[in-house]
């Protein structure tokens, strides 16, 4: 716990000093979403119809954008090497990395979601579904992105490899999350989709940190 707190505080200090790390993905998200209404033109009905898919695709691309830097700096500076050698703090470090990356890349998306709903002409019910699906889905995005970042750590041009590795894993999430928002726009019940998202999140939260741990050890050794 002490280790987790120390690693978490360290992450926040780094984020405060490297604002581009979390601001860029957020700007990317907003810009991609503003491009759609401009590209499609004045067809509010069409826009509201495809909005769930657009929002989720933009969200997962923006999380992916911030993923590559996750362990890179610590790998280059040798911090990771020392943590692997010390063994014990590594797990707390991985958990702190994932939590702080969720707070820095996904939490801002939640905050600007009302703006996005307005932009795409969604009603209040659909906005609520977006918030709920983002709340359950984005931690999953961050967990998988962390796994991709750990696996591609020692690859030279890891960015594209990371995308190729992780994007297919996002497919189930994308299907259920946009289905939830879709149902909400039609006024239907979407608790089943949310339950599936929650189940996927639980599974990932239990297993992915261990896989990240193993991947980091492999890359450092």
């Amino acid at each position, binding site marked *: 716990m002490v280790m987790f*707190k*120390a690693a978490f*505080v360290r992450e926040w*200090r780094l984020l405060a000093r490297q604002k581009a790390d979390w601001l860029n993905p957020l700007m990317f998200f907003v810009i991609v979403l503003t491009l759609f209404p401009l590209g499609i033109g004045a067809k509010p009905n069409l826009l509201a119809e495809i909005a769930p898919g657009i929002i989720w695709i933009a969200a997962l691309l923006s999380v992916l954008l911030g993923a590559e830097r996750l362990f890179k700096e610590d790998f280059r500076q040798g911090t990771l090497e*020392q943590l692997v*050698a010390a063994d*014990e703090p590594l797990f707390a470090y991985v958990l702190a990395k994932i939590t702080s990356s969720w707070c820095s890349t996904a939490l801002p998306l939640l905050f600007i979601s009302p703006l996005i709903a307005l932009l795409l002409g969604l009603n209040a019910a659909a906005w609520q579904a977006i918030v709920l699906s983002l709340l359950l889905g984005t931690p999953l995005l961050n967990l998988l992105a962390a796994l991709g970042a750990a696996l591609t750590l020692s690859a030279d041009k890891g960015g594209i490899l990371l995308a190729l590795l992780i994007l297919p894993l996002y497919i189930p999430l994308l299907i259920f999350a946009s289905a939830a928002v879709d149902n909400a726009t039609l006024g239907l019940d979407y608790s089943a989709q949310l339950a599936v998202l929650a189940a996927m999140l639980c599974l990932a939260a239990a297993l992915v940190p261990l896989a990240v741990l193993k991947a980091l050890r492999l890359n450092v*050794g």
Partner: protein
Amino acid sequence: MAVFLVTTSLLSAFALSCVRQDRVLFDAVDVTLAAGELLHISGKNGAGKSSLLRILAGLAMPDEGEVLWCGEPLSHRQPHSDFAQSLCFIGHLSGVQPQLTALENLEFWQAAFQLKQADPYAVLATLGLAGLEDIPCQMLSAGQQRRVSLARLWLTQAKLWILDEPFTALDQSAIKLLQQQFKQHLEQGGAIILTTHQAMEQQFPQSRTLELVYRW
């Protein structure tokens, strides 16, 4: 004789070999290190010093041979083993995060590596970094950054120190300071393995040198 060696030495390794890109860096290297001893690994650039250190620190697996900690093979160790707790490893990468200040780096290490909860200001002052505690480390010189990373040695409770080129970029006064710290650690029953191109023998009577021969 072998049993005797195992019981008295902290760290021992038998018949280590390491192959990198089809080149045999070294083979049949034996290492024994008892408490209070300093092992100086010397050799030309590219002779495999750093690779040997990483194997001894448990970060890499040897292609052949075995490393034993207090008689227990490292390859069979459990997570959170006694070995990792007794080890302070500082590689040729300093581990200093350049965006953070010396104080913030030290704070993180204190929690992560379970260092002594001593006053970090005092430690940094000992290392000649008084007044520089609150400056991001990227503003410091290479030698000063090295000093920040070596500050861990003033706080660690680990028995075995494995250091890759600790004297790099340090000035004479810092080298002297570090050597004093080494002496103190050895007197308290610790052990040190390091690589350096400095001569260590005069200062440390209890030191041994392992020469790795550069091979094609």
